[in-house]
């Protein structure tokens, strides 16, 4: 008799353990799905950089949330310009805005000919100058 009572307790014990695990896994999975939906909604709109005065280059368009500009070949947008630092500037999508940031480059980064000292918001039509290269920014409207 004592064996049966304890057996029932043991079965309930296993159920409690797996109820805990099941509930945790279920809510985490549910949470993850919601997060994915939100992230999809927050997807960065495409940004296009057109080099002004250099028609030989096609406008470069990006579907990313972070763009590194510099002379290094590993940069997102590599520039063949001796006045551009290896890692010169970064464009980043945060809080539903595109931002530009100077990465302590030698010659500085300029937004509409104003030096960029801190993270600054970009809008369509802005002009960014890194070294001697000037680029116009076009941000696709949000879907």
């Amino acid at each position, binding site marked *: 008799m*004592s064996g049966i009572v304890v057996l029932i307790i043991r079965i309930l*014990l296993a159920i409690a353990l*797996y109820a805990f695990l099941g509930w945790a896994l279920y809510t985490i999975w549910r949470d993850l799905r919601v997060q994915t939906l939100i992230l999809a909604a927050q997807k960065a709109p495409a940004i296009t950089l057109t080099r002004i005065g250099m028609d030989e280059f096609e406008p470069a368009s990006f579907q990313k*949330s972070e763009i590194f500009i510099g002379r290094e070949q590993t940069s997102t947008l590599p520039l063949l310009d001796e006045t551009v630092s290896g890692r010169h500037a970064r464009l980043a999508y945060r809080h539903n805005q595109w931002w530009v940031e100077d990465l302590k480059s030698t010659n500085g980064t300029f937004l509409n000919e104003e030096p960029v000292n801190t993270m600054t918001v970009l809008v369509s039509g802005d002009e960014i100058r890194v070294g001697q290269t000037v680029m116009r920014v076009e941000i696709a409207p949000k879907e």
Partner: protein
Amino acid sequence: MSFLFPPSISAQDSIQRRLMFLAGIFLFLYSAALTLSPAVRVHSWAADFRWQHWMGYFGWLAGFSLLYRQLNHLSPDHDPYLLPIASLLSGWGLLTIWRLDNFLGLRQTLWMILGLAVIYLLLKFPHWIDALRRYKYIWLSAGLGLTALTFFFGTYPGGDGPRLWLGCCGLYIQPSEPLKLLLIIYLAAYLAGQVYITLSLPQLLAPTLILAGAAIALLVAQEDLGTATLIIAIYTIVVYLASARRRVLGISLVLLLAAAIAGYAIFPVIRVRVDTWLNPWLDPGGNSYQLVQSFLAIATGRVFGTGPGLGSPGLIPVAQSDFIAASISEEMGLIGLVGILLLVGLFVLRTFSIAMRAANNFHRFLAAGLGCYFAIQSILIIGGNIRILPLTGVALPFVSYGGSSLLTTFTALGLLLVISSNEETASPELPRLRPYLVTGAAIAGALMVLALAAGWWSVVRSDDLQFRTDNLRWTIHERYVPRGSLLDRTNRPISITTGQPGSYTRSLLYPALGTTIGYSDPIFGKGGLEAGLDGYLSGLQGNAASTVWLAEWIYGQPPSGLDVRLSIDLDLQSRADAALAGKIGAAVILHAKTGEVLAIASQPSFDPNLMDEKWEEWRNDPDAPLLNRVTQGAYPPGSILGPFLYARVKPTLDRDPEQLSYSLDGKTLACARAAAVPLTWETVVAAGCPGALVELGARLSDGQMHDLFLDFGFFSSPEFELSTIAPSPDQPVADTVLASLGQSGLKVTPLQIALATAQLSNSGMRPTPLLASAVRTPHQGWVVLPTGHATTVDGTYAQPASLKTDPTSGLPVWDAIGQAQTDDGRPITWYISATVNSWPGSPLALALVLEEDNPEQAEQIGRELMFAALNP
């Protein structure tokens, strides 16, 4: 329960509350099962219930309920999974420790409350975490300094062991535990200090040197392979997560392997660990004892476990710390261990998710580092318990016994809770997601491998491991489950179990049968028939499979043992023992057709009831009382070969014997007793006259002599419930003279001679000896056990023995006497006897040996026993 875990304003609150409820219910049920477990063991409600562990349960409930309220109050945005998972793991560990040892349970409860207080302080003063960052070198030096102190003042709380502790006044801490945490904080602070994580080699130099230095120092000075591995692994993964460079993994793997190989070559402790990991079965009683006991515990638990308090995890040395995973596996089964693995996996998953959402890079690397610390430490120790990895003495976080370890893990939990409370500040962009996914997948894969390996022990290997002799669980079962009795052929008890459940003891009512019945003793193991018939006596054999399964499932025990009826006749047995009393020798009487043994006596014998006091004395006694001479005494046959030779060559005999004695190497061998006149082959063979034996042997070639020995089974051990000595090797006969005198090096046991005698009397059919004749099953009553197959040899000596009845004996039997000399020159006297063919009753055969030169007495005892056997 709402009083204990009240709802709060937090958005994620319902998840956390429900999980805390479930953890509380789980631990309550565990405690309840543990309280009732003594009643299950004795199958009755009249038992000493266990209550002490409720102190641990209520300590847990109060502590976590208070922390839960404070947590919701102080940082409502914390991660809702961390606290419930940690509470379940630590509560489960705590109750397991109470179950193993009440004193350690109490200590662990106090440590847990202290740990909860530390978490409270961290929540109350969350800016402390930034002080950690600012003064990283101070903390690091403090940690390294404390660890360095153990090189000079290190002790081991349990007496003799690795000197990894610092202690004073009954309180011990293990500085390598906080050191791990401090190294992670330092590493996170250092990496977060690098503005853009494009770590070049020189930038990695400082942390590498410090961490590698700490790891090597731990390895060299304290031979602590576990912590050293852990530090290198955490370092690698955190740098990989921060830099996303796969090269780091490769370099670190090479370093780890190099460290392991160097450690193996230099340090004996590590060599032992690795060797026992590779070959645990080579030395299961020595270096790999712990490891093998761990496998046995997991195998005992099978899938569902024995239930809390119903297994015997205390048999594993230091079950409460290094082997707590194996202890949990035994009582909660594979599902329990998989549950632990899932909890660890969930916890680590949450730390990674916290890392991704952290307020700054320091918090991010710290959370990821702490996650790796939990993951790797859990994998190392659980892997060590189930032979996936070499055993490293690290603690299972939250679960294992140990104050320093528990405080460290609770501090880490506090830090994670603080870091997770970040909803306002936006997290810095993750440079790459991939390293997190790769690391997460690797940890999940490792946990899955552990689950599969645990399944290997608890399902695939479970049955083989249950019956290993070093699985001592049977000694505990024997105290709680009555063992079957051994009865004689008229159901008179010989060996019985007495006492109350929980203190059953075995006693042999007829001690003279000691060497045959043997013993079932927690210290000395099992011997004799108690070992040979253990399946029935312990209830695992003879019961329906469903009965065995149910008993194991409900009680964690085998079912009640079954009684076995032996073929021994206690009256005849006591005659044989009385006749041999004071002598050194053995006698066996068996049914010549069925092989049933009616009496089996070996003197001197031992009394299994007195094993505890006299074992050493018996072991050192030159007369070897522990030896069952019937099955294990190997004697040269000597002139007792006469009847067998005679049966072989009888058809070719055309004249009477000429010689009685024989001169061998200048010594004259005479007849064992005076041959009766008129001299015939029968009378001289019966008297054991060596000259006649040589004459008989001369008629056989070497090959025929060899076949004769083979046909009478002198080269083979009979199948028997008692263990028999290995037979003489089957070798060609080199010297027919020596062979016919029975002095060619061939050794036989009295049992072999008795069976060969039965064969002579039984038309060439040699029975298989048998002691167990029936077993009493619960449903069918007495079930007769099958007799073994008889061996039939064809041909020449298949005819009945034609030795004449000795008219002086007055019995319907023929008999013969023989003498032999052992290799060291001591005399042996043999006597054999069997019923004649015309005897209408049960055919009997007897063999007797005395370790002295005394043919008259051998004949007298033999005839007396034969008379008693024929006139019951």
